[in-house]
């Protein structure tokens, strides 16, 4: 059946290459061509847009602007050059020798490298496993895992601190009973070798629920007939997962991965509460370094440069995410 010209106007087709930000506004209105709808839409959006401009866009522009200055005046990109020469941000030498601290930026990258695949993968596996089990405890288990995501991160940080505490912590106690040496049997957050790892493990617990819930929702949209057909064809459980579940959940997995990446990049609360970036900067991250610059050093320029850096790193993912939403 052919689409009518009105339903598929010239120049606003669904081709991927032409999808972009302007379409968000243009497509529906060009299709309908009604000025009143424009006015009504702007009316509805105006308060929200105004708030976004005032509290997101304007402060962002100011922050970027500030990052180009220092206490002596215009500094261009000098603040950024200083950041990359600062051992607190990047210490490649120690990183290569595997002696923490490696600098806030590298800590963020390590965090992403470990946390992203584990929390996304674990959430996916849990969602699939729970979807296959029909038992009374599945709901409880789901709820318990999801608890991490509804727990305020400040509280999460306190829990992590005690989870890895020498006396109260489960992990050091178990490892100590198994004969593990210090620091594994001591307070993980007190030692530079284990502090970052403790935070990453704690954050996996906090975030896996998010991945699990989104994947569970994605699973419920997959047509059961696909699995039935595969079973008739003799496909194993693993083959069904590999060739049906994984590809059909791909959009959800990508969204979860993008959100997780952004969350990891701006991680602050749990570090602030559990270790304050220590000991000796071994668990410092960019957002905490920004905080120290702004509220301890009282240096808004360095803090703005770090904030801009975080924005620059998150921009590609944010852009991809926005494009994806628009395409849908």
């Amino acid at each position: 059946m052919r689409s009518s010209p009105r339903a598929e106007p010239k120049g606003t087709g669904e081709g991927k290459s032409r999808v972009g930000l302007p379409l968000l506004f243009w497509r529906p209105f060009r299709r309908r061509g009604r000025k009143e709808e424009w006015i009504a839409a702007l009316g509805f959006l105006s308060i929200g847009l105004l708030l976004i401009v005032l509290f997101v866009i304007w402060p962002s522009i100011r922050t970027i602007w500030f990052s180009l200055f220092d206490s002596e005046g215009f500094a261009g990109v000098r603040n950024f050059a200083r950041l990359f020469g600062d051992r607190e941000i990047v210490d490649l030498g120690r990183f290569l020798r595997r002696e923490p601290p490696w600098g806030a930026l590298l800590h963020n990258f390590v965090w992403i490298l470990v946390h992203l695949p584990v929390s996304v993968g674990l959430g996916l596996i849990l969602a699939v496993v729970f979807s296959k089990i029909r038992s009374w405890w599945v709901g409880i288990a789901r709820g318990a895992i999801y608890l991490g995501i509804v727990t305020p991160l400040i509280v999460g940080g306190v829990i992590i601190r005690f989870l890895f505490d020498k006396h109260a912590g489960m992990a050091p106690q178990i490892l100590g009973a198994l004969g593990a040496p210090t620091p594994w049997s001591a307070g993980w957050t007190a030692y530079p070798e284990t502090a970052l790892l403790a935070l990453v493990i704690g954050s996996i617990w906090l975030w896996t629920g998010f991945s699990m819930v989104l994947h569970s929702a994605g699973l419920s949209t997959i047509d059961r007939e696909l699995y039935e057909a595969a079973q008739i064809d003799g496909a194993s459980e693993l083959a069904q997962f590999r060739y049906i579940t994984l590809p059909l959940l791909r959009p959800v997995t990508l969204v979860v991965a993008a959100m997780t990446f952004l969350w990891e990049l701006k991680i602050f609360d749990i570090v602030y509460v559990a270790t304050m970036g220590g000991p000796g900067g071994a668990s410092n991250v960019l957002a905490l370094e920004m905080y120290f610059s702004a509220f301890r050093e009282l240096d808004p320029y360095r803090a703005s440069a770090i904030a801009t850096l975080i924005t620059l790193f998150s921009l590609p993912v944010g852009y991809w995410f926005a494009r994806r939403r628009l395409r849908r």
Partner: protein
Amino acid sequence: MRSWWRVLGVLLGVSVLFVGAWAEKLIVIGPWSGAEADPFVAVLDAFKAKTGIDYEYRTMRAEDLSKVLPAQFSAGMAPGDVIFMWGWWIAKFADHMADLSAVVADVPFAYVDPLVVGGRTVGVPYVVFVKPGFWYRKSFFAEHGLQVPTSWPDFISLLKRIKAIPGIEDAAASGDGVGWPLSDTTEHFILAYGGVNTFLGLTEGTIAWESPEVRAVFADYLVPYLDYASEPIEWTSALDLWWEGKYGIYFMGNWITGMVDDPNDLGVFALPGAKAVTGGPDIFFVPKYSKRLEDAVKLASFLMSKEGQERRAAGGGKLVVRADVSPTAYPPAERALMKALEGFTLVSDMDDTIGGEWQATFWDQLKLLWVKPDALDDVLRVLDEKFPKG
């Protein structure tokens, strides 16, 4: 329809009453909570009874206030009427503080002076905390036949004897807040074995942390002590563990007297050879944006009056700043402490005086040193690098 109007009227009335009651209260913000706040709240209650001015006490650490206040000041606002904050921070934001010169005009200060910037009194020391040394339970020492050390070898020998006691995890507990109890311990070592001049030189930035005399204090005294000290443990947990007998001694400030079950079982000793101890004031300011400036000044005057100071002294845990408050105003534990401090010079706490990012770095580097004593040279280098320039 009429019933709707009634409901609306009642809601409006309740809202007005609620907002009115809320707005009437004088907001006091301090760092203490729980048992530590009780003596201060008792003073506020006395103020309320005397003047009829109602108050609301809110707990906020200086760390948290430092995030809130700059933005509020920029908007010409303040979250409270009387606020306790770091001294170095008050000095940096002096333009936003009300002048309290009249409040302190007749106050005979004993340990510290008010914070004056540009001829205006912007911060008023209310109480003083002292870090007198290592606390022990008299019953624990008596049970195990332990004596207060009189020399450095004595001190090491004491640590060895405590560590050998069955059930003891480490001779000394190391409390960790965000690192500050470790800084207190370190400052005590510097004062005892580097001397007051070295201590003041480090505070003022005229002596480097990597200088031989400072390094010697760390290498010859602090690092050997760390062999007998626990890793940093959250300081209130450490207090409980020490009190239960998992550790023999615990370095902490005098506020500990208000936090243990039996203050009369407490004993304290400074490191052998120490002639000075560190201490510092809890300082308050009144923001010039206070909506109840007059009442805030009234409260400030009451807090600094002889009556207000005597009431606070009776609560224990801190020493008040007025010189005319008699030692008999204090509970027995504080009286004993004052006696123990006779002959000692009180020096301003180093990290609180320097403040800023260096303070956080100092805390953090000491947390590293505590678990990695072989990182001493790195720690000293970072402390030099991070010291405020100019």
